[in-house]
């Protein structure tokens, strides 16, 4: 493959209009990578919760602290956004909602659904 060194490169991210379908797709990756970064913290918390009555109480207290609640809400947004956009990808694999209008509607539905779950969680936890 011969690259043309003089080909025009135009990647002004502020000038590129990202459609809602593209935003869902990018966020699926971003939330996935962020969720993976949270795995060590989640495993540490899980392990602590199995270390006797005191470990369990510590894990609960950590989650119930203001910082813990905030982290939980952020994690819930990450996971629900990734869950719903993943579900959308699986449906697209089955050729469901591939046409542009449907793809835009399902992308909007993903944002609404994850926002609804996150707001509900924030209302209960914060």
């Amino acid at each position, binding site marked *: 493959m011969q690259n043309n060194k003089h080909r025009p490169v135009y990647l002004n991210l502020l000038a590129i209009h990202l459609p809602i379908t593209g935003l869902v797709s990018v966020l699926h990756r971003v939330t996935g990578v962020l969720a*993976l970064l949270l795995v060590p913290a989640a495993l540490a918390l899980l392990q602590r919760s199995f270390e006797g009555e005191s470990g369990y109480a510590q894990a609960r207290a950590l989650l119930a602290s203001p910082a813990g609640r905030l982290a939980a809400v952020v994690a819930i947004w990450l996971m629900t956004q990734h869950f719903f956009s993943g579900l959308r990808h699986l449906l697209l694999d089955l050729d469901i909602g591939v046409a542009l209008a449907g793809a835009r509607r399902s992308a909007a539905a993903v944002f609404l659904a994850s926002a609804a779950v996150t707001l509900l969680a924030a209302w209960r936890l914060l």
Partner: protein
Amino acid sequence: MSARDLGSARAGLNGWLAQRITALYLAGFSLFATLRLLLDPITDYPAWRAWLSGGAMRLALAVFLLTAIVHGWLGVRSVLMDYLHPGGWRFSASVAVGLGLLALALWSVQIVFWDLRP
């Protein structure tokens, strides 16, 4: 470079399929565990331990943790392949992520099979 140098096409399909299968398990287990905890909240240590250390649930938890790590590997792999050039940082980044995920997998096994032992 000819198409032959790009490797087996089936290997890519296997990864694609594994990503979908792991996604289904992760979604199913997450949904089940979330609903279980919301409908009948666990409030003390004996109940928490009893819920997760029972035979089937313990195995399902182990599969969930390992599946999450495999799914994470497949996802990060496609991100690295898209944004890092071959031969450059892609190899080192893949090795680093792979070793990190291997450590997480061993840690998960330790949690389920040692910390959660009956």
